[in-house]
């Protein structure tokens, strides 16, 4: 794909702010409105805002080609299709099975398998076929090297974790655990193929380098997030500890106790038939 942007008489920084960063901010803001508001119109406006933000971010390679950040918008546009196929497919498979509520027809299971399978094949085609996200001919989107190894590696880690959890904490969940081991094994297989077999644009050595970088990235994200959560907990704990103890009230007087017992006597028992 050869990206040719629109021409504007505008400062590049301002262009990036208006056409990339504000749309990026619109997505969480819209989601916040749609999830936290009680009013239906605010919810609908929030959803529209988030949708508009996603569309504008996807269009950023054309609207702000001078900004390197717009490559992330390009990647979003490239992977949103297969990702939606996978998620909708898994939803159809899950809810066409034995669920108590929201059960879908049995025929949806095949459609779900087909959709999620096509999604995975589409993503694999981005590595080993001609579907690789390219900013210009033969120039692979740099963020593809971030997304793909992180996604596959974490899927295999989480699937393996889920398989062991089902085996150890679950009751008679061997079949389900085996399914998760298969998913983990398939993900590891894709990683091993990736680090040993070149794609038309993605070389095995380059993928290998980015795989280790993805591990460093995930470790960094885990450490940074845990640190901020710990500090948040510490701030709340310190504040709550500094609060004065709640004022205790005086014990009831004998006249108050008499009044309570009188009220209780009047409301207990009932009339005999």
């Amino acid at each position, binding site marked *: 794909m050869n990206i040719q942007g629109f021409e504007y008489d505008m400062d590049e920084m301002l262009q990036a702010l208006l056409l990339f960063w504000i749309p990026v901010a619109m997505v969480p803001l819209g989601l916040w409105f749609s999830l936290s508001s009680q009013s239906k119109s605010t919810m609908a406006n929030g959803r529209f805002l988030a949708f508009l933000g996603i569309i504008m971010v996807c269009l950023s390679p054309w609207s702000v080609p001078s900004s390197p950040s717009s490559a992330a918008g390009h990647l979003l546009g490239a992977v949103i299709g297969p*990702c939606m196929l996978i998620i909708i497919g898994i939803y159809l498979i899950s809810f066409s099975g034995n669920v108590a509520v929201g059960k879908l027809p049995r025929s949806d299971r095949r459609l779900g398998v087909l959709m999620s399978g096509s999604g995975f094949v589409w993503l694999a085609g981005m590595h080993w076929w001609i579907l690789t996200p390219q900013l210009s001919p033969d120039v692979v989107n740099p963020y593809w090297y971030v997304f793909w190894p992180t996604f596959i590696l974490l899927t295999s880690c989480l699937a393996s974790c889920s398989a062991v959890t089902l085996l150890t904490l679950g009751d008679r969940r061997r079949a389900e655990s085996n399914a998760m081991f298969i998913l983990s094994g398939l993900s590891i297989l894709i990683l091993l193929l990736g680090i040993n077999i070149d794609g038309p644009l993605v070389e095995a*050595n380059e993928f290998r380098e980015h795989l280790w970088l993805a591990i460093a*990235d995930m470790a960094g994200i885990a*450490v940074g997030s845990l640190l901020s959560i710990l500090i948040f907990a510490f701030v709340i704990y310190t504040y709550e500890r500094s609060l004065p103890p709640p004022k205790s009230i005086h014990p009831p007087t004998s006249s108050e106790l008499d009044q309570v017992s009188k009220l209780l006597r009047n409301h207990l028992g009932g009339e005999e038939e």
Partner: protein
Amino acid sequence: MKESSLSMTWRMIFLAFLLPPLLILALDITFYGSFKGIDSGVSFTRFANATLTAYTLCSLFLLGNLFFYGESRNRPLAPLVGMVVATLLGILATVFFIGQGPMLLEDNGSVQAQAIYNIVHMFVSSGAILMSVCVALGVTFSAITSQKPRSDFDLEEE
């Protein structure tokens, strides 16, 4: 479940999480005799940038959550100030460490460019993490719902 057995289970689950990268590492050492493709300097730079960015962005998110906490506490200022200081500390640390020179600068020429790259990189990584969590949870759920319904009588007999 006994406490010791529960702690053993948690360890097994944690090890299962680490198993795939360890397996790839073991295969790499077996076939190539070394950690092929690992540049410790570049990996450390990525780790440090990811830590600083995740800390700052997560603190900002939690700062937003403090407003909801404040609703039940008569809007106190103290925790809000504490969290603002913690977030500012993250921003200052990011700017300071990136400004130290090539240690945390990846392929970017300035502190501003590196900071913006870190944020965009974090969005992409978070997207990949979110997607893999959806896939792992979704497949676990569909594996459970695809089994035949269990009879309560079987459980009672056991």
